[in-house]
């Protein structure tokens, strides 16, 4: 599973081929990985176990490092592989490379993400986490000649390093308590003892480390800077998979390790996670609306969506998890399409601010249609994957007592984000409405890198294919049921431990997943209406927010100052706060 990726990146790294061949080799490697992950997904058994070096568990105690591959993990790995293929195809045309470094790094990045999805060992998780992060640091800062790229990569690297330190401290504490690193083993050992301060502190540390990657408020500050400056193929992988894998990590660690000891406090934890998700969603949406730089706009849209995925996950139920999983894939495809459109616009017109691009992309109208479709899908246009995922999360929220307000928040966030994207599309592709104001905090003009030749025909295919895929994803028959079964297997910590340590397979009780009902359509209609209203209001005149609100938004934007020291301060402060909240509620 991992082997072809490693072989592929070794090939690309040590290749003596000329530049012409690199792109092809890299794409071939990615396609091979995709094929293998799809083969994994298509297996019928619930969990596949691979123990490296043949170190099988002895008498129920795991002694080796293993991969424990279940439905959601394999699905996510296949999704990462698909995004990897798309990114590498785009990279083959968009990136001017000297040497094979970029493609090799991309393959390593994809390999690390696939490994992260499949692993069953906590330290292995950490190692793949680090590998993923380091290759991302280099890829984001690839165009190091640009000042902004350097700064983005720097803040990204510094903030995520602090996150990984927190994660490792948590892992160390768990090892100290249980003497095990296998996720199932740790879970089983912890369940036998009551949860005490050490377990809660370990959970807080691990959660903070993964939240930094997942760009949850207040750990999210590196995200906009990094996405704004990274080359587009890297953005596709970052937006589609990187942050979502942070959430996957938390879900995996929670349901294998901490569900036992902390299960009694599930209500408190549910509240904390849902609130964190809601805050992230709202902050992302508000800052998205305030942006005029297309890539930063998409970055904040991603943060907002990740917040909503966290809400789905934080409901701590199988159907919420299934909804989030379906939504993640759909959203990743849509984001890939949107980033692809932005890249083509940037390639052709050489600018990335709404004001400068006003109406200049008129001859790229078909791309405008793709962009608008993407924006509508985010605002949950019915009959596609995003809508399906969101409907499942809404149903889960309505089922959980006390969370009936959640779908309304989802509506507001997706409406705001969709509306902002519609506004951007209308301004850029159709020249409609008032010209955007000069962004006071925007990036200064830089000479653009990359040639302007019309070599864009291959590039057009990518966004179109992605949008079609996003729509088709929602129409796959039986998707909701398959996701429900996979999610049920995921949250079944006893079954996981039994399968990994004892080799037994316990039956899985899959939840009933009804088709999206009237409420789902109503919420979707509400979100679409809000999106339309936001876009119309923004286009009709240069909107002037009432003064206190405008000042608040400006203050919020100033907090994201671009200084690594500030970001680290927020990360540490957030970790301390989260740790305190956990200590108060989970002990």
């Amino acid at each position: 599973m991992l082997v072809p990726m490693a072989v592929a990146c070794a090939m690309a790294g040590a290749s003596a081929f000329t530049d012409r061949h690199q792109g092809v080799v890299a794409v071939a490697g990615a396609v091979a990985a995709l094929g293998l992950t799809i083969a994994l997904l298509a297996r019928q058994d619930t969990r596949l176990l691979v123990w490296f070096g043949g170190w099988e568990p002895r008498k129920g105690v795991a002694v080796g490092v293993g991969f424990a591959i279940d439905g959601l993990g394999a699905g996510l790995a296949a999704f990462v592989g698909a995004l990897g293929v798309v990114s590498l195809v785009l990279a083959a045309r968009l990136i001017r490379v000297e040497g094979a470094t970029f493609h090799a790094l991309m393959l390593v990045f994809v390999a690390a993400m696939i490994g992260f999805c499949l692993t069953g060992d906590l330290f292995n998780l950490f190692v793949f986490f680090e590998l993923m992060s380091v290759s991302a640091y280099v890829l984001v800062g690839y165009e190091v000649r640009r000042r902004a790229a350097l700064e983005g990569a720097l803040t990204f690297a510094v903030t995520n390093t602090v996150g990984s330190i927190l994660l490792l401290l948590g892992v160390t504490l768990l090892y100290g308590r249980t003497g095990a690193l296998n996720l199932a083993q740790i879970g089983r050992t912890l369940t036998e003892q009551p949860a005490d301060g050490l377990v809660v502190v370990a959970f807080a540390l691990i959660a903070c480390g993964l939240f930094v990657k997942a760009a949850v408020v207040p750990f999210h500050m590196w995200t906009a800077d990094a996405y704004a400056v990274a080359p587009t193929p890297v953005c596709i992988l970052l937006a589609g998979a990187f942050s979502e894998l942070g959430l996957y990590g938390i879900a995996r660690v929670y349901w294998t390790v901490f569900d036992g000891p902390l299960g009694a406090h599930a209500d408190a934890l549910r509240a904390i996670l849902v609130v964190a998700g809601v805050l992230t969603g709202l902050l992302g949406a508000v800052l998205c609306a305030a942006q005029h730089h297309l890539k930063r706009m998409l970055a904040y849209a991603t943060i907002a969506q990740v917040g909503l995925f966290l809400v789905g996950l934080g409901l701590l139920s199988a159907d919420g998890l299934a909804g989030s999983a379906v939504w993640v894939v759909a959203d990743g495809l849509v984001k890939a399409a949107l980033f692809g459109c932005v890249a083509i616009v940037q390639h052709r017109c050489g600018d990335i601010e709404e004001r400068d691009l006003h109406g200049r992309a008129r001859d790229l109208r078909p791309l405008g249609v793709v962009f608008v479709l993407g924006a509508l899908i985010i605002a949950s246009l019915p009959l596609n994957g995003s809508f399906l995922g969101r409907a499942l999360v809404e149903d889960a929220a309505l089922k959980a007592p006390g969370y009936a307000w959640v779908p309304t928040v989802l509506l507001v966030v997706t409406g705001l984000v969709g509306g902002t994207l519609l506004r951007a599309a209308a301004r850029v592709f159709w020249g409609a409405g008032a010209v955007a104001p000069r962004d006071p905090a925007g990036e200064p003009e830089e000479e653009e890198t990359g040639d302007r030749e019309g070599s864009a025909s291959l590039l057009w295919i990518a966004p179109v294919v992605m949008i079609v895929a996003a729509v088709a994803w929602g129409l796959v028959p039986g998707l909701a049921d398959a996701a429900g079964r996979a999610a049920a297997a995921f949250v079944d910590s006893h079954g996981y431990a039994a399968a990994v340590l004892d080799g037994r397979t316990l039956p899985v009780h899959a939840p009933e997943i009804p088709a999206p009902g009237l409420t789902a359509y109503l919420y979707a209609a509400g979100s679409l209406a809000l999106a339309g209203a936001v876009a119309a209001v923004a286009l009709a005149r240069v909107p002037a927010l009432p003064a206190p609100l405008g000042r608040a938004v400006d203050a919020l934007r100033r907090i994201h100052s671009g200084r690594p020291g500030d970001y680290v301060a927020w990360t540490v402060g957030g970790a301390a706060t989260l740790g305190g909240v956990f200590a108060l509620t989970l002990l």
Partner: protein
Amino acid sequence: MSVLPYVVAAWLLLVGVYGAITSHHLVHLVICLAVAQSSTYVLLLAIGYRTGGRAPIFSDLPPGTPVVDPVVQALTLTDVVVEATVSAVLFALALQAHRRFGTADPDRIGTLRG
């Protein structure tokens, strides 16, 4: 003896993070992150220590001799390697910043706001 390594680990973490927050030079920032990371090494090794344990090499010891935990030492080595890689990347970025933009002050590089 039993509490001191944990206090040292906590102190290293705090000092490293404080230095990273208030740093005015990129090289200093990277070294502060390295100090913070070394708190994890100390914590790992402290957890693995067994009072009276010998080094975990059984070529000359009879099996059953108490030794310190070798797994933790392996984890620490992995951690050192990871941290070395990250530091290398960060130093490369710092070098590029100084070379191209004439400054190594993290506050003065910035053009990304909001």
